[in-house]
């Protein structure tokens, strides 16, 4: 296993180089440039060109790439043109906001999604199963944006129970001392964010549980006279969760990448909205920085999923 992990980490190096080259090319291929957001007839083309040259954008692409990657290796992610701050600081400011919201919603969706998936599977075609299925499909087919707006209208605007938007009440800091305020603000976004993943956890757990229950060894276990609970939770569950674990590995990236639409409608200062603004402003350093960061997380997440696979199913050999 150790060898496997080391090999994977070594493999990651060319993969990361590939990703960085691709990212760099796609960012520069996108129409527009970092000065494009200054819509001002007083901004002449010459002045634009001068400012872009100051950013080093007048050099040939390979040179720009090498400059960028050397700075990255030195730990310098560059300056964000939109936020007027070092990219590192911009990411730092946003990533924990996103992480907090994602982890809450992830836990929420696991705690709800997996058990109801199991119940649905063990009671297949029962009223309960259909009820949960309808609930899950509702969660999958309603756009997050729309669902969020409806929740806001009901709970914030009409019932006045919860704040309409934001992460804190203006004047309060984003810190542990202000936890109650933040928790209050995160109720609706966490529900919206959790609904979709809860639904897919439920569906995957259900289907893979159904699959496993029909396997021979479960029948054997049953015929040995084991209690149904033992059969389900000791023998079946472990195997049924393999596909779910794969999903979990993917979530590592999601924990930090944020959800653009949910963050937008709730005014949550997270990575999704920030990355989106970076793209809209063609803030090259920021887009590259954010996506490289997320790429590394993706690789870690996939590696973790593979390791978890091995733990959950000892039959799998990696060679």
């Amino acid at each position, binding site marked *: 296993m150790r060898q496997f992990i080391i090999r994977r980490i070594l493999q990651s190096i060319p993969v990361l180089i590939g990703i960085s080259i691709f990212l760099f090319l796609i960012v520069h291929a996108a129409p527009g440039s970092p000065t494009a957001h200054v819509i001002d*007839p007083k901004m002449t083309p010459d002045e634009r060109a001068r400012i872009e040259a100051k950013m080093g954008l007048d050099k040939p692409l390979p040179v720009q790439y090498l400059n960028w990657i050397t700075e990255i290796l030195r730990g310098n992610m560059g300056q964000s043109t939109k936020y*007027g701050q070092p990219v590192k600081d911009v990411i730092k400011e946003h990533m924990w906001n996103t992480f907090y919201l994602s982890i809450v919603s992830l836990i929420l969706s696991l705690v709800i999604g997996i058990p109801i998936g199991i119940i649905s599977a063990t009671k297949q075609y029962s009223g309960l199963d259909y009820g949960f299925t309808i609930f899950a499909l509702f969660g999958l087919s309603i756009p997050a944006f729309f669902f969020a707006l409806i929740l806001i209208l009901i709970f914030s605007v009409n019932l006045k129970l919860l704040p309409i938007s934001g992460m804190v009440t203006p004047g309060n800091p984003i810190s542990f001392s202000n936890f109650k305020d933040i928790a209050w603000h995160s109720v609706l976004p966490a529900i919206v964010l959790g609904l979709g993943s809860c639904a897919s956890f439920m569906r995957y757990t259900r289907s893979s549980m159904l699959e496993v229950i029909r396997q021979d060894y479960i029948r054997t276990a049953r015929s040995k006279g084991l209690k149904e609970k033992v059969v389900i939770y000791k023998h079946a569950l472990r195997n049924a969760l393999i596909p779910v674990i794969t999903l979990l590995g993917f979530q590592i990236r999601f924990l930090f990448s944020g959800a653009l639409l949910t963050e937008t409608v*709730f005014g949550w200062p997270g990575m999704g909205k920030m990355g989106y603004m970076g793209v*809209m402003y063609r803030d090259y350093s920021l887009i590259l920085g954010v996506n490289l960061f997320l790429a590394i997380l993706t690789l870690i997440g996939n590696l973790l999923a593979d390791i978890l696979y091995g733990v959950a199913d000892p039959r799998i050999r990696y060679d």
Partner: protein
Amino acid sequence: MSKKLISLILVLALVFSIALVGCQKDEPAPVGGEADDKQSANEEKPKEPENPALARGNVLTFGESSLDGLFNPIMGSNVYDGYINDLIFRGLASNNTAGDPTPMVAKDWKLSDDGKTYTFYLNEGIKFHDGEELTAEDIEFTYYTMADPDYTGPRWSAVADVVGAQEYRNGEVDSIEGIKIINDYTISFTVKDVNAAKFGAGDFGYGILPKHYYKFENFEDFTALNQKPMGCGPMKFVNYVVGQYVEMESFDDYFDGRAKLDGVIFKIVPDETKAAQIQAGEIDVAQLTADPKQVEIATKSNLATIHQQVGNGYNYASFNLRLDKFKDKRVRQALMYGLNRQKFIEVVYQGYARPCNTAVSPVSWAYTDNVNKYDFDPEKAKDLLKEAGWEDRDDDNWIENEDGEEFTIMWTTYTDVEWPQKLIAVAKENWKDIGIQLDCELMEFTAVDNKTRNERDFEMYNMGWSLSIDPDPTGIFDGASDVVGGYNCGGFHNDEAEQIIAEGKLEMDTEKRKKLYQRWAEIANEELPYLFLAYRDELFAINNRVKNLNITPYETWVYYINEVEVEY
């Protein structure tokens, strides 16, 4: 059995949650006597609505869509960052409702007889937020920074015409010849050419940066202060929580007296719920889009009133005049006649916009009503097209030119705002009736900007302009701006207009300038470089606890911050 019940409950819960939102509608609908009774019952007890905003104390909360966080008057370009910069910093001069320059940091100024040297006399005793006094050196520093070789902000144009600025920027000289400190409270700027539009363009309005605080060795030290601003304005910067709010408190030693408020908070609120937050009293002031539905929501709780004004700008759709089909002005006029702008504005804006027929806003002193109104007239449109050689030659209801080519238009648009998509839907139907086939491509804003301004590879595209106080159209309609990256994207050239633009800059007499620009407005109306669409109203929703918040097209509310009061 019980399981079926649970599933039934789940389904019902879903339906109910939908109904809970949907049922809102039924209440105000006065159908039949019962509903009428309810309404009159409501009227009988006109209770003063509880205003949750009162709990926020003597602090004004302004809701806005986004902040870049560039809190530096010569670095930021976003309107909202601009509000914050205007509160923390103050410039040499400001302007009044009519758009004429008024004293600010400078108490007075003088223009030399040749019209090239501006001498500013500063108010004495102005203090920055750290207690240091403002002197001519700070003015010099601010304008030198805009000309600094390493400067990457958007304000070079403010000093570009100062004698010696270009040489300084090229690193050829150590000082700018045209900026002279005469004494601690007097400074002069000498420009290369007379420019009557200089004040109106806002060149002397940029906030003054304290030299002792912002002085830098390399430019990164300067930008490092982007989120730690310090100036001499009425509000002191306290805190910025990224993506959430900016907190400011009143500056006790502000040279024009301390504000009546204790502070101002800018809360970042999503556009989708801006009106809802006004309705709930969560914010005191916000600008709304010119949409009657937004207004209805914002005023539903009777906590807020709407301030409505004609904006200093207009929406347009630009033609690519380089294309043969748009070269003939009769074709452009036909497209104008053939589009039912009046009806579109009536239905979509419902009183919050009016048809626009030229490139000058009714707000401007250069506006003239003496223009063709292009009232909807499909027959006239067809006649004009026929004159220009476009008619239906093969009875397929689409018009063709002599070579048998059909008239098709590709309209490029973007999604950030909603009106273009609705307008295109109308244009497609309207122009179908005069035999023109319209298609649309929807892209992201910067992509549209790139396609039109840099690549200039388009047929039509729409956008809007917010104009500066001075009506000088340089940069948008002059021939020199018809270059790659310039804003004359459509490629408009007109000799008379060119002459007016040149003359207008040299003419110092406002009455004569007015005549010139009115003539320009007539030319624009006749030649139609753009398909002029609408003057949108600017709407601000203001909580009833806020008093004396004045807004005019040329003066944002931050100009009047000292007079603003709130109940609490």
